[in-house]
Every structure is written in C-alpha cells, then in structure tokens.
C-alpha cells in the first residue's frame, strides 16, 4: 500500500518522458524531411507558374478603328499586357531582366530593363493590378495596336523593417504594342495623369453579436471542401450548427478553388448555394479570403485582385455575409515573407476590396491579440484568434478593444483539442468542454466568438497543419463532434454558452 504513490509517480514520469521523446523525434523527423526534400525536375522546385487571368477590361473604342478589334484580339492583347506587367514586377523582384525581352520591345524594353534594375537595387516595386482600356489605334494589317487605359497601379518601397513609400493610383496611360513573331509586345508605355485610389469615409459597423463555428465538412475539410461540395452534407451540418444555438459561420475561400477556370466558376455557384442555405437558417457568414495563399511575391498580386473581382460580387450579393475576413492569420507569415511586405499586400487588398465592393465590411483574422491593432483604421471590425493560455483571455480582449477605435471586436477562433495520449494527457473530451466554457465566459464582452471547429478531422491536411505527428494528432480532435458524429461534452457546453450569449436582454 505504501508503495502505490511511488508507482503512480514513476508512471507519470514515464509518460512525461515518453511524450517528450515522441515530441523530439517528431520534430527531428519534420526537420529532416525539410532538409532532404528531393525533386525529380527543376520545375517542381519552383513556384508554380500558372497562366494568369487577364487583368484588362475592354471598353468600346472612342472612335472607329481602321481595323476592328475582335474578341480574340482582346483576349490576346489582354493576356500579353497581363503577362508583360507580371514579368516586369517579377524582374524588379528578382533583378533578373532577361525575360523582359519576351514582353517588351522598342522604347518600352529599354525603360522596363532600366527601371527593373533600379527597383531591384532600391527595393521599390510597381504592380499593375488591373486596367480598363479603350482601343485607340489598330494597324490595318494587325501589326500595331495602341490603347489608352486607366491602370490601377501600385508603387511601393520597403526596407527590411517598414514600408517607406506606398502609392495606389489610377494612372491614365497610353500603351503601344507591336505584333511580332512571338506575339504582342509593349513597344511604348507613357503615363499622362494619376489619381490616388482613396477609400471613402466609412460609417461605423453595427453587427449583431455573432456566436459561431468555423466550418468544414467532416469528411472533406480544407482543400476538399469546395471541389467535393455536397449540399446534403452541408444542409445537415448547418442544421447541426443551428442546434448549437449558433447564429454564425466562418468559412474559407482558397484562391486555388476560385480560379478563372471552369472549376472556379463551378465553385462560385457552390458558394452562392452555401450562402443561400445559411440565409435560409438565419445564419450569418464570415467568408475568409486568400486561405492557404502560397506567396506574397508582388508579381502575383494582380492575380490576387482578379480573385477579388471574381469572389466579392458573390459575397456582396448575399444578405448572409455580415463581415469579410481578408486573410487568415497573416501575422504568421511575417517570419517568412517579412512584415513590411505582408503589410503592403494587406493594405493593397483592403484598398482593392473597398474599390470593388465598397459595402462589404472588412476584418483581418489575426493569429494573436498582439497583432490585432495593425491596420485597425482601415478595417470595419477587429478580429483575432485566441489559443493563448486561458488565464489571460479577458485581459487580451480588453487590450484589443482599447486599440479598436470603437469598432466591433470578435474572437474568430478559439478551440481546445480533446486528443488524449494517455491518462487525459494532453487533453480529453471533458477538459475540452471545461476549457471552452471558461474561455467563452472570459470572452463575454466580445462582439463575436467562433469555435474551431464543428467536427473532428481524423486526417487533417498537412498543408494546413504541418507534418508533425504530435500537431496532427492535436489538430484532429478540435471538433465539437467526434469522427463518428457523436457529440462530445464540448458541444453541450458551447450550446449553453451560445444560448446565454444570444439571449435577448
């Protein structure tokens, strides 16, 4: 009898030791994988170079042309302009100017080469985000074309620590192209006028108190959500969300799933269907844009704007959409892309979203409360995720609210894993319920709280959660419902908290 406590202590010590060893081995395994990744072909090691959607919208010519511009001409010239300016930005970003000869000729080639080299040296960049063009001259034999355009153009300059200069403007330009053996190339490009793109003053956002769930279907989470969209599964899940007394959902719209292709168009229809199903159940929706965005390189920003132009009209048309989350946890990208670059991208996308869909309220889903004050003046609501220790929850919320300039503050992700390795370590279904209830109590003053997530995911996607077996196990058990569909204790705890939070005073 007297030995029992000693045995318990030894067992606990053994478990701690085993867990520590497992942690170290998993970490070493991931590090080794990172170091020894092999590619069969050079192209596999590079960022994928996809055919960009045209960034040129055509207006009728201001006077008759010698040769009319056919839809095929518009497509070819639009693509040539898009690719030329993407190549120009890439040349600034890399300092490699040889490829410019593919897209520029004559005076424009000389200027693009000089400007790219200077930009690579001084850290400045120029991105032509989109253009609205009037044809103004077309050679009878189709060899010369000239347009006047209003080009949404971003110019910025960064240091390693900060944005030094940022200009987003509508430039009035004249661009002359020549049709050569390899296709259209920009021969001359001149700017005549420029108007800053300035957001209009915004009215304060009034939101209902949002108590919601971050949502993926149980069997098709992350990148499988939109391609394998099953309306019957979604309808059943939304009913389940409603049964938890929730009034909101947060969903994710990866750019890859909403590309300018038939699959993207199909997914836009699915998004529309999803929003209608949510509206039918009085559920508000916060769509999160740019999920799993792969790169911040400025050569891709025009494509990001094209994605906004495809997705935002659908969101703008739905009464269910009460807030748009521009980017999930961009502060986690500071380490890899650099904070100034991430900030420049965020400001650009905020401005362009305002320009495309002025009525849509915007937030950013910061990974931590510490990042939440960033860009607050440009946003309609402040949101962050709180996976930090539970004891500081209320203080963090209070600090964020202080910096929120009176705007609504939402905590759009809280969650606890019920994963049990052994002896209720590191968690359990019961501890999940308790910790969620405690955190929701601490977040009482918040204007919104969203749980991560509705379902357990037995095999979470490595691209989203990483390759560590330990992390994957934890991530697989954040659901309110387990893999069999049975409610965990947390479901009842959340339902009770949501009922309290949404009960009319």
């Amino acid at each position: 009898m007297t030995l029992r406590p000693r045995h318990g202590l030894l067992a606990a010590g053994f478990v701690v030791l085993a867990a520590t060893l497992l942690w170290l081995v998993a970490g070493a395994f991931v590090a080794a994988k990172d170091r020894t990744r092999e590619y069969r072909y050079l192209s596999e090691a590079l960022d994928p170079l996809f055919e960009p959607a045209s960034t040129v919208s055509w207006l009728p010519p201001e006077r008759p042309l010698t040769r009319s511009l056919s839809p095929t001409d518009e497509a070819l010239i639009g693509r040539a302009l898009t690719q030329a300016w993407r190549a120009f930005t890439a040349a600034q970003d890399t300092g490699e100017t040889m490829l410019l000869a593919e897209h520029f000729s004559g005076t424009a080639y000389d200027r693009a080469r000089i400007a790219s080299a200077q930009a690579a040296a001084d850290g400045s960049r120029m991105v032509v985000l989109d253009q609205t063009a009037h044809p103004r001259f077309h050679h009878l034999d189709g060899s010369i074309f000239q347009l006047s355009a209003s080009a949404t153009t971003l110019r910025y300059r960064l240091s390693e620590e900060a944005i030094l200069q940022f200009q987003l403007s509508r430039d009035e330009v004249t661009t002359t192209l020549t049709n050569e053996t390899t296709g259209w190339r920009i021969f001359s490009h001149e700017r005549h006028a420029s108007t800053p793109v300035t957001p209009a003053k915004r009215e304060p956002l009034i939101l209902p108190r949002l108590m919601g769930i971050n949502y993926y279907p149980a069997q098709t989470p992350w990148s499988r959500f939109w391609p394998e969209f099953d309306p019957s599964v979604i309808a059943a899940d939304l009913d389940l969300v409603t049964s938890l007394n929730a009034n909101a959902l947060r969903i994710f719209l990866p750019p890859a799933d909403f590309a300018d292709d038939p699959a993207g168009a199909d997914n836009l229809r699915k998004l529309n269907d999803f929003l209608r199903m949510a509206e039918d159940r009085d559920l508000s929706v916060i769509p999160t844009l740019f999920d799993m965005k792969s790169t911040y390189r400025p050569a891709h920003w025009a494509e990001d704007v094209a994605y906004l132009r495809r997705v935002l009209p659908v969101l703008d048309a739905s009464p269910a959409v009460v807030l748009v989350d521009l980017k999930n946890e961009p502060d986690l990208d500071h380490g890899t892309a650099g904070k100034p670059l991430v900030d420049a991208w965020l400001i650009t996308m905020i401005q362009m979203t305002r320009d495309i869909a002025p009525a849509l309220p915007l937030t950013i889903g910061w990974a931590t409360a510490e990042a939440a004050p960033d860009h607050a003046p440009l946003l309609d609501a402040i949101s962050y995720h709180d996976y930090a220790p539970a004891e500081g929850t209320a203080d963090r919320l209070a600090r964020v609210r202080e910096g929120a300039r009176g705007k609504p503050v939402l905590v759009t992700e809280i969650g606890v894993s019920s994963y049990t390795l052994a002896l209720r370590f590191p968690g359990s279904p019961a501890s999940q319920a308790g910790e969620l209830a405690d955190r929701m109590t601490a977040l009482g003053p918040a204007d919104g709280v969203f749980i991560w997530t509705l379902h357990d995911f037995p095999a979470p996607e490595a691209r989203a959660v990483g390759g560590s077996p330990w992390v994957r196990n934890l991530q697989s058990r954040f659901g309110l419902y387990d893999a069999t569909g049975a409610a965990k204790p947390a479901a009842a705890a959340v339902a009770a908290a949501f009922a309290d939070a949404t009960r009319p005073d």
Partner: protein
Amino acid sequence: MIRCSDLALALLLAQPAMAEPFLADAFGLYDPADAGDRALWSGLSGPRHTAPGAPARIAIFAGPKSLVAGKDAGHVVAIILDRAGNLVADGTPATITVAGSRFSVRTEAGIAHKLLPPGTRAGDLYAGVTAGDQQSPKAMLSVVADVGSIEPAFGTPLPTPQGETVFELTSAPLSDRFGNSVPKGVGATLLLTHSDGSHSIAFGQALGDTLQAQFIARDISGPAEASLALGSHVSATVPLTITAPRPVGRPAIRLEPLPDIAALRVTLGPFQTTEGYALTDGAPVSLTLRLQDGTSLGDMAFVQDGSVALLLPLADPTLVTGVQVKSPLGPVDLGDDWQAATGKVAP
C-alpha cells in the same frame, strides 16, 4: 520612415500628402537624385509633366504586304519618337510618301498614318515618312493581280500528245480585270475527261503570263476534253487526242526451264516504241498460253527496264500451242517466236 499602422491611417485620411522621397513615373519609383536618363522620359513623373522633344527616330510599318488590285487598302503607319524614345507631341507634322505621292499628316499619340485606297496596277510600292529633319527607312507594299477576276482559257489549238510521253498543256495569256498578268506561281488544276468517262488531273502553276501543267500520256490514249480551273473559275473544254504508243518490232522471248520446281521462267522484251523509248517502268504486260489439252495458263507483270519476267508452273514448254501478249503497245501473237525459243532450250 513610416510605420505601417501610421501609414494605414495616413492612407485613410490624407494619402496625397504623404512624404515621398522617390518619384513615380510610368515604370515605377525612382530616386530623383539618381534619375539619369529617366528624367528625360516624357509624361507624368512625380508631380511634373515632361514634354517630348523633336522627332529623332521614325519606325515605319506598311501593310498588308500583299494587296489585291482593286480590293485591298494599304496602311502606312509611322511611330515617331524623340531622342529619348518618347512619343512625339500630338500634332507633330509628318509627310508620308507612297509611290511618289506625298501626304501631309499630323501625329496622335506618336502615330502618323495614311490609309491608301486600293490600287489597280500590280507591282511594288515604296513608302517613306519624314518628320522634322528625320526620314524613315523605305517600306514596301506589293499590289498583286486580282486572281479572282481571271477567266482561265486555252489559247492556240492543243497539241496531240504521243503515248508514253510527257506532254505540257499551256493556257492562253491570262490577266485580271485590270490587265495585270496572272501572278507567277499561282496554282491551277488541269483536268482531262476521257471518252470512257474517266478523268486525269494535273496541277500546274503560272509562269510568265500563262498557266502550265504536265501529263504523262500513259494508258490514256484516245480522245479527251481538257479544262483548266483557276480558283472558282473553270475554262471552256477543249478537245484533244492522245495518240497510243506504237511498237517497233516484236518483243523477244527467252525461256529458262526450272526443272527442280517444274516451272518455266519467261522473259519478254524489250518492248520498244516508235518514239525510240522502251515502255516505261510499271507498264502492265500480260501473257496468255494456250496448251495442248485445251486449257490456258497466264500471268501478268510490270515492265522494268523495258522487259518483264514471269514465272509459270509449266515443266514442258513444248506443250504450248498458242501465245498471246498484251501491253500498252497492243496485243501481239508470239506463237512462232515461242516455238523458236523452245528449240533453243536444252532438253
């Protein structure tokens, strides 16, 4: 240096008032203290407009390169640049010269151009542009005959081709509605319709002011009607007669018994014609033997090097009582020749 959050506020409230040490132009941002040639680029640069200079370079683009007489307009276009490569100012005077005619024009967005009405005379046109004290290189346009208006026809009576020879049929001199000769190299189709309803076809092309096509008169002897198709136009038909080739002498027979396989190799030839040729390779020749028992034996082969060789399942050549050979030179009875050849064969 501007912190990002401050920058965001500044964007919201007073974007144009931001302190910006670098200037913006059509190709990005640049340091005005280190502008170099960039300071000469025209248009809006920072807060200032830079005007272009006088014409210093002219790029000329004339096209389409091949204009159909009476139908296609031409277009002579010049992009006029100053010394720094800027498009010259709107309204800059320029002169476009085409085949000696001068046209005064003014530039818009650096472009001076002249649309030329369709010409009727085939030939090369040279165009040039001058602006200020600058002159462009020469550019060339070609006006070609309106082939669609050419009516194909044969001229003088057609020849009487000899069989097994190559012969050429030539059209009358052809010209379009403006008198321009058919362009060299234009393709045409020449069709012979034979008395049995079959057709022979050859593809010709224009050389000089006529169309020419060549035939080989093999197996097409007899009366025929010739017609010429150029585009969608077809000429009237013209009769001609193709003479069958005539033989000279009789083809020789050589027999070679092959007792091991109870067969006989028969060599016939050469088949010679009055034109001094042997029958061309590939001409068909058939041999029919009548045997003592009343049955027949035969085979056919194609001429190679003037002769044919046949292998017959016949062990004894003396059993043959009749020999008939058919070739493009006509049928011939070689019974006596066979008997003579049989005598030379060793028993």
